[in-house]
């Protein structure tokens, strides 16, 4: 798991995007710059207590997180952070995870 999470910024109009698009939805430009975001703000959370088709599921927490003025992404929370909290972002194979700002990643 690496520190920070990569979003994409349209080089033409500045729109923040995730996931990456083929064309910018705002200006239809095709040139994007990767942009690392280290932090985000949790807005809503949900504990996933049941997974369809699985019987040995361990609950996970997901969150709607604002990572830029005009961009929200869905993040896997690894601690008890909640709405209003600032979290540090991490990335694992293109998926975003987060823990409370300043906290260590769970072992």
């Amino acid at each position: 798991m690496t520190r920070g999470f990569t979003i994409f910024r349209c080089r033409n109009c500045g729109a923040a995007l995730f996931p990456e698009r083929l064309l910018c939805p705002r200006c239809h430009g095709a040139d994007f710059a990767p942009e690392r975001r280290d932090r985000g703000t949790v807005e809503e959370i949900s504990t996933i207590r049941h997974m369809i088709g699985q019987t040995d599921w361990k609950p996970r927490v997901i969150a709607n997180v604002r990572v830029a003025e005009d961009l929200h992404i869905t993040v896997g929370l690894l601690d008890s952070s909640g709405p209003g909290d600032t979290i540090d972002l991490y990335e694992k194979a293109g998926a975003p995870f987060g823990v409370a700002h300043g906290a260590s990643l769970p072992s």
Partner: protein
Amino acid sequence: MKAAIIGVGQSPYTRRPESGQSAHTFIRDAVRAALADADISARDIDGMAVASFSLAPDTAVDLAWKLGLSLKWLLQDTNGGSSAMNMLGHALRGIETGAASVILVTAGDATGLAGYGKIAASYNIATRDHLAPLGHGGPNGVYALVTARQMKTYGLDKTDYGHMAIAQRAWAAGNPNAVYRAPLTMEEYLGAPMVADPLTRYDCVPVVAGAQAIILAHPERVPRGRPVVRVRAIRHSFNHDNQAGDGLKTGISTFADALWREAGVRPGDIDVACIYDDYPAMVLAQLADLGLIPNGDLKRFARVDIGERRFPLNTHGGMMSAGQPGGPAGGLNHISEAVLQLQDRAGARQVPNARLAVVTGYGMTMYRYGGTAAAAILERTA
């Protein structure tokens, strides 16, 4: 519009398909039921539209082959919860332009729970790569977040959604084809196991196996003695906001005014509403987008109009009680229910003198919420 819905049919629904049952066999049973209802022969069909998550590797032409249908108009739709409405729109135009004269629209799925789980985890590239690795729980997790947002925005609590689940279950008691017909109490609703906070078991549409079919043709082909049901207006929306909003407004918000204008009626004229109900929050969102909730007061509408069944919403029980045999077939069941109500054929759940119905579709959870939506106004014309 010159085309009419001349017949509807469904297969039995089941929670767990048995050996030998597949999307294909459920579709066959629904098609046979629709042909019988329309009082026509399979030889009369010259167009077909189909949507299914579990038809693969077969495609529409394979289904035509297996049903023995030789066609001059064929469509396979991929829009999930709004597939039924999308196919309806294409079929209407197919009849009206003369591309075909009798079009079968069908959908069905038999994924089983494990199969559904696999589809949910790999629904599109964004889901596969950016959501499933989080353990997001498929659409349950996505709409848990949307529901939390709606509760915060409109000051709703769990009981507000409970009124909808309970009311739809009460309607389902009058539908012999509904999978869940036993009365549901608020105590049971609130006490149900949490699936994805704040969604409990009764907020999550139950996956079943089954299929639906409807048939469109010139109104002259409506069986004798049966009222003609036509579509006064139909509109669609795809990727309305590039997933940049909060999900509390659906694509219906982009065309609702035009829909009512084209139909020449007002929200208050509607007798029956068949609103795509994968999650209660999205029902409220669609009703609000359609202008059916006075003053935007979602809480009052949920408690009084829906909860006391003053507003006939999803009178077949909706997918939440009738079952969801995949989004496409679930959407077709909403259209079928509107037809049955408008033809005074809805039995114990019949809404007296129903003349106008609104039907919607909503689906394709792309990343943060659904990206497809559609709505139509259906009328009884004779």
